[in-house]
């Protein structure tokens, strides 16, 4: 099907402050909406309790650390005991006590890199463009703007009723956001 009208991304509303945004998010949840997101200039703990996220960062970081430790130790064991065996003041070839430092450093290196790229993956970054950036005044979200956007992919979304619902929360302003 070919349509000329742009597909909506969702309907966004701007609020005065953190308290209103959290109240609006709670109201949207109570009204049965699930696919909505709050936008704020700093983390708001109460908002994260309403809008629950999901990620696998901790296990990824843990296993990356374990993999780093194995890589670090095996690299040293392989070189010092197999490829390039050297007698250093009569110490055994597999002098594992001396290998602990690099094993630790490699575990840290792998874990840090995994945290960084894992977080970017779950963010969905880089995503330089986003439909919400077309809202005039959305730039204030990195200063003192508080926004709530109910997305069109929500099963309960309807252009008219959702806009009406958001207006009932007494926001500063409400926008329809196109996805293109």
């Amino acid at each position, binding site marked *: 099907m070919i349509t000329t009208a742009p597909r909506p991304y969702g309907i966004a509303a701007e609020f005065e402050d953190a308290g209103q945004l959290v109240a609006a998010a709670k109201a949207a949840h109570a009204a049965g909406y699930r696919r909505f997101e709050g936008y704020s*200039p*700093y*983390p708001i703990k109460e908002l994260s309790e309403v809008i629950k*996220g999901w990620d696998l960062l901790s296990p990824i*970081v843990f296993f990356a650390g374990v993999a780093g430790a194995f890589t670090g130790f095996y690299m040293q064991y392989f070189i010092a005991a197999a490829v*390039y065996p050297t007698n250093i003041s009569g110490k055994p070839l597999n002098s594992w006590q001396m290998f602990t430092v690099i094993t630790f450093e490699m575990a*840290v290196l792998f874990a*840090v890199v995994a945290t960084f790229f894992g977080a970017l993956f779950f963010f969905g970054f880089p995503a330089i463009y986003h439909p919400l950036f077309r809202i005039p005044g959305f730039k204030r979200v*990195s200063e*003192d703007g508080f926004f709530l956007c109910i997305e069109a992919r929500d099963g309960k979304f309807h252009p008219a009723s959702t806009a009406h619902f958001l207006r009932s929360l007494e926001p500063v302003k409400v926008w329809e956001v196109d996805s293109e």
Partner: protein
Amino acid sequence: MTIDERQRESARPLRPGEGGRAPVVAGGVSFKSVTRHISGIVLEPNVPLFWFAAFLVAVAALCVLAAAIAILLDVGAGTMGNNIPVAWAFPIANYVWWIEIAVGGSLLSSILHLANQSWRNSINRLAEAVTLSGIACAGLFPILHLGRAWILYWTVPYPNTMIIQPNFRSPLVWDVFGIATYGTASVLFWYFDMIPDLASLRDRAASRSAYVVYGVLALGWRGASRHWRLQEKASRLLAGILTPLVFTIHTVVSFDFAISLLPGWHSTIFPPYFVDGAILAGISMVTMMAISLRAHFNLKDVITERHLDNLSKVILTTSVILAYVYVFDPFTSWYSGDRYEMCLVYNRGFGPFAWTFWTFIVLGLGIPQLLWWKVNRTHPKRLFVIALLIVIGMWEERYMLMVTTLSRDFMPSSWANFAATAEDNALLYGSIGLFLVSFLFLTRMLPMISLYEVRELLPFSKPGGGSVK
């Protein structure tokens, strides 16, 4: 209480006997004012003359460094004063000193993050700039000290036709991995924490080029609550991983000394002693930088007397711990009954390099004791001078550790003194230029204060705290 009342309340000067502690963020600061002020420093070409003057001096020093490195590589390591037996002198003292300065910044950014010390929020970014600049300088010196810097890659294990590999039982190889990991982790942590602030710059950018550069660096940050939750989680994970790394990095540096068998170095007290000295020198450097930026970029609202007071207390505590080490180190030598150890203790106090020891004792241990008085802890100019003297004293200490041990080893026939050459001095002062160029560049091109972390500190940031629009 309305917002106006609340703001008046926090801006009101404290009455005598009322807590007596300055707030972490001054009253009257709003989301808008802090964002506009800090991003304005980056985006609006209204830079104080001080910055240009400092940058000019720093670039001049950096040119000296470049010339010194060129001479070193062209003529050879003989241009430096090190020779057998004092093979480690200026380059390694500089290396240890710069690592110390970097570690102090990491203390603020990772350890105090993990400890939920919210006062560090506004000086966190600045401390990270100190860390990155310090690592850049520190990484330089072991490479220059190699003599043949162009075969640096021999320290890394890689398949090669010479079938030769590094000796993993050597602490010097541990250092290669330690510094590489520390540098990588610090850069990633610093950038990751800065993404929301880069978005602030993107959204304030007036010119197209600034918009594109900061827009790409911000990766599309839009302040979504799911992103904030993940950002906090990842940031905490990074801080948790970096905390043991910060302690081990200077521990590994101390192993370079402790694992040798030389008197004065071969001691189990070295790892904690090095880490403590690192925090003392590093926090002193952070304090100096914070005081300079605070005065010249008008940051008194976000870097308050409370920060100076808290930083001073960290300096004071670590200096007292260091004093303990300097009491117990001679005691251990005496108690061991080892004549070489006792000879070294005597040489430190009364030998040819006694002046380095006593300079350190006065600057590194004596001067910090002035911070027992609150008037010194909260007076920016006095605190700056105190911190500067401590940083100098800590360099003196590292130099003392090198020369007192190496110039007087087991056999008097192999004793020899050390004299620094012009090359040595050029490398040391030039590296200060590198540090300052890097630091001034980072603080001018990127937000020098963590914006979102300061917003979190404002009284009206919590739901129910009201609005300031």
